[in-house]
């Protein structure tokens, strides 16, 4: 995969990561090494084995469906990088 610049570029696009060519090359080579190791899992016999689920997970279940105070708008917006008119500012995504 590492030498397949198209694939690394596609992964970066899916992950919303800007990836300059030099960095893509380094990351691609490292990913190939790591994936080479991970491919060792192909040797494990998993026929009939279910995907992992915590067998004895004790769930506390859903919270009670009752009205309660939550944080106010100003507090919620305090950590937002850009707000307009007490709303989160989202860059234009459609013409």
């Amino acid at each position, binding site marked *: 995969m590492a030498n397949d610049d198209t694939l690394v570029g596609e992964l970066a696009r899916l992950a*919303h990561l*800007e990836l300059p060519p030099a*960095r893509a090359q380094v*990351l691609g080579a490292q990913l190939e090494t790591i994936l080479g190791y*991970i491919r060792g899992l192909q040797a494990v016999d*998993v026929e009939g084995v279910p995907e*992992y689920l915590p067998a004895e997970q004790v769930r506390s279940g859903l919270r009670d469906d009752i009205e309660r105070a939550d*944080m106010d708008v100003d507090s919620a917006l305090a950590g937002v990088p850009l707000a307009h008119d007490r709303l*989160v500012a989202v*860059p234009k995504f459609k013409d």
Partner: protein
Amino acid sequence: MSASDDILGRSARALAKGIRDGELSSLDVTRAYLEQIHATEPALHAYRCVTSELALAQAQAVDRARASGASLGPLAGVPVALKDIFVTQGVETTCGSAILAGWVPPYQGTHAQRLADAGAVLLGKLSMDEFGMGSANENTPFEPVHNPWARDHVPGGSSGGTAAAVAARSCALGLGSDTGGSIRQPASLCNLVGLKPTYGRVSRHGMIAFASSLDQAGPMTREVGDAALALGVLAGVDPRDSTSLDAPVPDYLAAVDAGAQGQLAGTTIGLHRRALELDGLAPQVRDRFEASLAQLADAGARVIDIELPHFEHAVATYYVLCTAEASSNLARYDGVRYGLRRDRPSLRETYEATRHDGFGAEVARRILLGTFVLRADSYADYYGRAMKVRSLIAQDYAAAFARCDMIASPTSPVPSWRIGAKVDDPLAVYLLDVFTIGANLAGLPAISIPAGFTASAPRLPIGLQLIGPRLAEPALLRVAAAHEAANRWHLERPPASGGGS
């Protein structure tokens, strides 16, 4: 001995008792720790921020409460510090990342709240590998943390700031998080006790997510009793985390006191002998492990051989699953809702530029790997298969625990290494997680405890790990306390703490 040395030399448990009994004032204790932070930080860089004013105000409140006769919480007046992965209302929380630099949470996480409710004094936030991804505290846009036992060596990771601060006596106890060994490995590299509880034993609310099915918070302390004290405060169901366990919280301190008697008759410890044949296991680590195991046997424990047939597949399984979960969890950092934002003409360009500037190399590597294993073309061969191997690994542990009470191993195959020595070989660093990640994959509790030092210079700590069945924290603490009672490793003080051992 000065009053300050007396305070810094006490365990968290002894400090709490001293304050409760009126022998110590919380304010004096807090001042001693703040002075220690100022003395050690230039060399260690363990703290991301120090909350001096808050700490002094909390300490005064504890002293006032005691003077008025009010009942005090179990950690009243004890100075604590939190890995910067824990959300703290009104205190900057970066998770070790430039993408969250400057973010001041508008809410309190469960961990900070429970510690405050127990009367703990918050000294500050501690450095870490970015988003918990790393084993050396070198994956950071900030200053790397130095190991108090050898300043040119790493403290481990990702809770390396917590480890360095606790070891250097610049907090009485610390909180870390453990996704693949991030509490236990730095504890091992810094001569500490590090406890990763059963998955769900401690809430994840307010712990910034890396890999949600693996993440768990836990204490890092100098002594076993302090870990028990902290776990008793942190454990318990939380309505804000639906994966938290609705199970009774036992008396962990009673387990420690029982273990401190040094009698382990009736305890069976499993040994996976094949794991000791790993190429990468340092001979000095193996020697210390075998010496610790012999001590436990001398105390009456029975040691038997067990098998973990899929042990060698755990690292690969872990790095498929944790990167998949990370790629999903970290999608929320987009320049719109939190922290860093790089304004660009379009939404996609804003996302991409923000994430390029905000994430470090290791985070980007893991996001790309996680994106790959979750792609439709790769899912069955990678993510789906890893989830099946995870089942096999959990089954292996269940079968082993039908024959033994816990499994012993080294915590890390190597002691600490020089800063910068492994930064260009991520796979080599991943492989160092070999002994710790099994407990995360199977959701089991595990503890690392001091097991001695290397014989060669520099003198570096080595850890012993015990893994137990679900909710077996009391048994782990009992055996850990017995081991501690037979040794004096935990009483040694690192050179960079202002005192020699």
